[in-house]
């Protein structure tokens, strides 16, 4: 198993949540102090560098108009990371290409970074969380169709080397697509796509891309991975574990108590996600059935943030001393039928720099070596 250190680069120094309606979309940026923010940017880059030193691979993402994530442009962060790191693979998960007006620009940026990093880039594509639609002013209806057309266009742009091609699609139009540079990795960087339900999985499996799922716990993760495996099987193809990735909040302490204390700070990521109702479920984003459930007040993954104990029990947090963390991950891994990538959110909210480094160091030294040997025994 490979482990990827992931941080959302939050800006947690906010006023009392009672004074605002939403941390997403419409929280005024006067709450962002550039002097504080600039230091945070450098700190978070340092933490990725330290993760690399510990032998971890690196993951980042992007969000817009939110204090939960200071990176509205993953490409800019990738530019920095690809220069200040030397050996780690770098995963962007991902580019919200269903919301992007210009997929060719994404193909260009990712090709640049692949060259900067001398072929260490892994490119994720995501539909994005519902609160991304308004910042992008992107129509929430048919986002999956746009994502797949953008995906097809980007892959064609990466792998076409004989001059311009024409693209007059349902959503995107170009007449002279001929990107410079082409990717460093040939024929192209590995591609990842996220899924929160089984609906999107078949197509990801058909392409043989890695499917990643976030905070889906035990049973939903198993459903998604099973759907991937059965689609591959239906295509008479095997599923290597490296096609499956699971993202959780992870904090490893010297003791269980220290591990839990760190994890409680990570829970900020869930508990701080106060979102006004109009941003939670833009029309057309969720299935009709899911929308009806939300109208009736169903909880989302974020709303379900309860106690640390419950989050651990649900498999969305792995925390404790190294033996405990290993046991939790191994149990989850066995339950869902195995996976090859653990995407670890190791910093969130008010978890300070030294605490962040301590958590990832404990993980890298005490847990990771055993995870690398983890096989399905169930």
């Amino acid at each position, binding site marked *: 198993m490979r482990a990827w250190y992931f941080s959302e680069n939050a800006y947690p120094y906010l006023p009392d949540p009672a004074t605002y309606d939403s941390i997403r979309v419409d929280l005024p940026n006067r709450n962002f102090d550039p002097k504080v923010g600039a230091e945070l940017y450098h700190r978070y880059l340092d933490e990725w560098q330290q993760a690399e030193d510990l032998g971890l691979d690196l993951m980042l993402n992007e969000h817009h108009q939110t204090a939960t994530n200071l990176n509205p442009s993953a490409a800019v962060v990738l530019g920095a990371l690809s220069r200040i790191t030397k050996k780690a693979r770098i995963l962007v998960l991902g580019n919200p290409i269903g919301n992007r007006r210009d997929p060719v620009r994404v193909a260009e940026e990712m090709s640049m970074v692949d060259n900067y990093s001398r072929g260490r880039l892994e490119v994720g594509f995501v539909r994005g969380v519902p609160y991304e639609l*308004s910042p992008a002013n992107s*129509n929430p*209806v048919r986002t999956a169709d746009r994502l797949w057309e953008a995906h097809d266009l980007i892959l064609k742009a990466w792998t076409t080397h004989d001059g311009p091609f024409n693209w007059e699609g349902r959503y995107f139009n170009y007449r002279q697509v001929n990107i410079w540079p082409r990717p460093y990795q040939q024929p192209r960087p590995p591609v990842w796509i996220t899924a929160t339900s089984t609906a999107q999985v078949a197509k990801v499996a058909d392409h043989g891309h890695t499917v990643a799922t976030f905070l889906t716990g035990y049973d939903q993760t198993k459903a998604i991975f099973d759907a991937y495996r059965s689609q591959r099987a239906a295509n008479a193809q095997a599923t290597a574990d490296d096609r499956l990735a699971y993202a959780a909040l992870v904090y490893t302490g010297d003791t269980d108590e220290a591990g839990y204390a760190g994890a409680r700070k990570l829970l900020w990521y869930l508990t701080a996600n106060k979102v006004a*109702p109009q941003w939670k479920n833009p*029309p057309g984003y969720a299935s*009709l059935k899911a*929308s*009806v459930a939300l109208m*009736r007040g169903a909880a989302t993954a974020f709303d379900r943030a309860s106690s640390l104990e419950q989050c651990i029990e649900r498999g969305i947090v792995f925390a404790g001393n190294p033996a405990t963390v290993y046991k939790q991950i191994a149990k989850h891994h066995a339950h869902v039928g195995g996976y090859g990538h653990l995407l670890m959110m190791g910093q969130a909210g008010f978890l300070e720099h030294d605490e962040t480094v301590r958590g990832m160091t404990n993980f890298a030294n005490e847990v990771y070596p055993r995870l690398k040997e983890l096989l399905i025994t169930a």
Partner: protein
Amino acid sequence: MSVMAPKQLLASGVPLSYLDIGEGPPILVLHGAGGLQPQAPFLSLLAKHGRVIAPTHPGFGTAELPDWIDSVDDLAYLYLDLLDALDLRDVTLIGFSMGGWIAAEIAVKSTARIARLILVDSIGIKVSDRLTRDITDIFGTDPGELQRLTYYDTSKAPDFSALSDEALEIIARNREASALYLWEPYCHNPKLTRRLHRITVPTLLLWGENDGIVTPAYGRAFAERIPGARFDVIPAAGHVPQNEQPEAFVERVARFIGER
């Protein structure tokens, strides 16, 4: 009057479902983003003054949504095809809100089958400067606030908690279809104002006096841009005067139809 079963026809290969109630001069009714409620009292009141044809736009209610359809322009052409298919003449075309936008787009394309046009709390044009939103962002407003802006009397607003899953699914589908058609440019066609001079049939703009979604001032500005159009308000009504004041609404429509 009991609600009649909807009829079906194929326009441009698109299956269209429509109510067809009453007899007499044809009245084509185009619903707004809230969808078509067949039981709405104003429909049966209106049917006393003519043959009411009320289609459900593709994607709303249980109406099919072909994957190539995504714009108000598409809907305008569909309904021009529907007028041809039913061979309707001297039609009174009434559009509510989003349906008003569709009606205006139909009228600038062709009034060959249209005798008069009534736009009710209509959207569709851009009046103010680029920093000023003419039309409330229905997708970016707190649901409670949205109800206050929509209704003069919020006790007339639907209570979601009392609705069945099927009814909620229709509401979710209506919202989804609304977003498809209205998202960008938001609730308007930047070119429409330049085309309104083509509307040469008698036109009435009717507005809920207390409409907080699109204000009466917007309605007046809309009316000023259509040659000879008149503007009238319905008191004690918000964005859906046909539902809040059905009698007053139908009385004004009937009077306008009766004018020669």
